[in-house]
């Protein structure tokens, strides 16, 4: 239980800090508010970037940008993976064969290259990024859910309920969701963290929404700044987005792992 609460509390703390940065912090995340490359000070908590835009404000808005992309992708993957997994596991036969093929197909494609290809061609809006990430995250979820549903289908209580004429939705609600929901939620939570990483990877390659202040974009702009390695500017320009990214991904991961132990009672 403590293992569950600590990452959750820390993540909440991080969210509150960035919420302050987004809502009450006086500097803007889009417009210059000081000289370029100012060191951290009272006015600019983490200094400014080459355009004089406050870094703390950028990191804060980046947090909500990344988190919302991660959550949106996770929700889509949750629904797609859950629906297809349950349908395939329950129906069996031809449906199962088709879904299994789709799962294997999506699992065998090298993810980053195809994301680059699709991202490059479908344009660089946040909505597209969400769809791309979700499209390549549902397969592992569906695989797990399918396996679980298949084993559930053989239980006596389900056979009985089905023989009384229970429909799939009824059976899912009353007999299967208790087993499947935790699995589904945990894997979707894992998708959130991975989606944040993937979004920032795509942003780093310049394939994310160029107007959104995402962490990947900040990192790309900083590393693209000529000779930045030889100055000390990178300490306040590069480290904040990097640390924020690593920290939030790690906390999410720890949380989902603790949840897994708590619910599924794994070692």
């Amino acid at each position, binding site marked *: 239980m403590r293992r569950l609460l600590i990452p959750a509390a820390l993540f909440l703390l991080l969210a509150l800090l960035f919420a302050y940065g987004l809502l009450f912090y006086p500097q803007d995340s889009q417009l210059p508010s000081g000289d370029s490359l100012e060191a951290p000070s009272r006015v600019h908590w983490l200094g400014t970037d080459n355009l004089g835009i406050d870094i703390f404000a950028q990191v804060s808005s980046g947090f909500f940008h990344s988190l919302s992309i991660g959550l949106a992708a996770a929700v889509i993957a949750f629904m797609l993976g859950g629906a297809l997994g349950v349908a395939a596991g329950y129906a069996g036969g031809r449906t199962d064969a088709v879904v299994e093929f789709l799962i294997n197909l999506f699992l065998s494609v090298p993810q980053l290259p195809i994301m680059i*290809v699709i991202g490059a061609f479908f344009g660089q809006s946040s909505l597209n990024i969400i769809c791309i990430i979700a499209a390549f995250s549902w397969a592992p979820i569906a695989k797990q859910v399918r396996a679980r549903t298949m084993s559930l289908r053989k239980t006596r209580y389900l056979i009985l309920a089905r023989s009384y004429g229970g429909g799939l939705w009824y059976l899912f609600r009353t007999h299967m969701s208790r087993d499947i929901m935790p699995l589904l939620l945990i894997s979707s939570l894992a998708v959130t963290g991975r989606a944040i990483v993937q979004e920032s990877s795509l942003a780093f390659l310049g394939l994310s929404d160029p107007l959104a202040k995402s962490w990947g974009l900040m990192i790309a702009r900083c590393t693209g700044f000529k000779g930045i390695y030889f100055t000390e500017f990178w300490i306040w320009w590069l480290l904040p987005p990097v640390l924020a990214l690593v920290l939030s991904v790690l906390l999410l991961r720890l949380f989902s792992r603790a949840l897994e132990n708590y619910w599924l009672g794994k070692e």
Partner: protein
Amino acid sequence: MKKKILLLLCSFAVIYLVNFTIPRLMPGDPFDYQSAAAGEESSTEMTEELKEYLRSYYGLDKPFFSQLWENIKNNLRGDLGYSIHYKRAVSELLMERLPWTAFIMLGALLLSLVLGTALALLGLRRKKADGCLYALFSLLGELPHFLAGILLLFLVAARVDWIPLSGAVTAFGIYYSEWDWVKDVLLHALMPLAALTLVTVPSFYFTARASFLSILEKPYILSARAKGLGEGRIRFHYIFRNALPPIVARFFLSVGSAIGGTMLIENVFAYPGMGTVMREAVKYRDYPLIQGVFLLSTVLVLLSLLAADLINAANDRRRGASL
């Protein structure tokens, strides 16, 4: 096994088709883009007639299926088309870039394999080390590939004089011997290799650890101990050799994510592999080149998945025979 191969072939067919279709669904084409990217590549705006001519020159005005058929025929001949941006044959370009990417990727995977297995072996003997490594690798496994590269670039490469920041060889370098060249290449590969290894070691460690632990529970280990065999013999012949197949399979399963990781890390260090060429290709909407990079990486990944399946199948057969 036949089913697996069939599945991989089907996957390949679907991916091939998607890869072929996507660029043609998009609005605009390279010629619109080239004439619009003023100042960068061509500063003249193309007339409609010129665009028409170029479209027919590159075969982009033909119907979909005849383009597809042409494409398949050409690819079978090893012709992946002609890069619109680089103005060279795609296959030639990729053959130039592939060795660098393969070098980084396979090198890092091999390093991870050796390191991960060695550390897992160490963890078997020392429980404390195992605890530390498990926690450390759980964290490290979450590190995004490009961040590993960036952190190494800023924290190590920029501080240490003799580590180059980018490229695969010294620009305009003059070498007095073959050995000099090898040294230069290795030095340039050091950081990308380290970055990729850092991120891939954890999965090897976990696989090796699980594999060793499952072997340790086997009755034949107990019987070997009861026979009074030497600890070294038990370790090597009984544990290590039986635990190896899943670890080797992990090597091939890792290619999929490692290829993406290599592409990202290459962009951090401006390493002249497929990742950097992919980024350029995307920037200039260079269809044939994007398709070529994607096709090549897909083939590599599917082949390595096949290899992993073969290893697992062989291992299962052996297990089955020994039961």
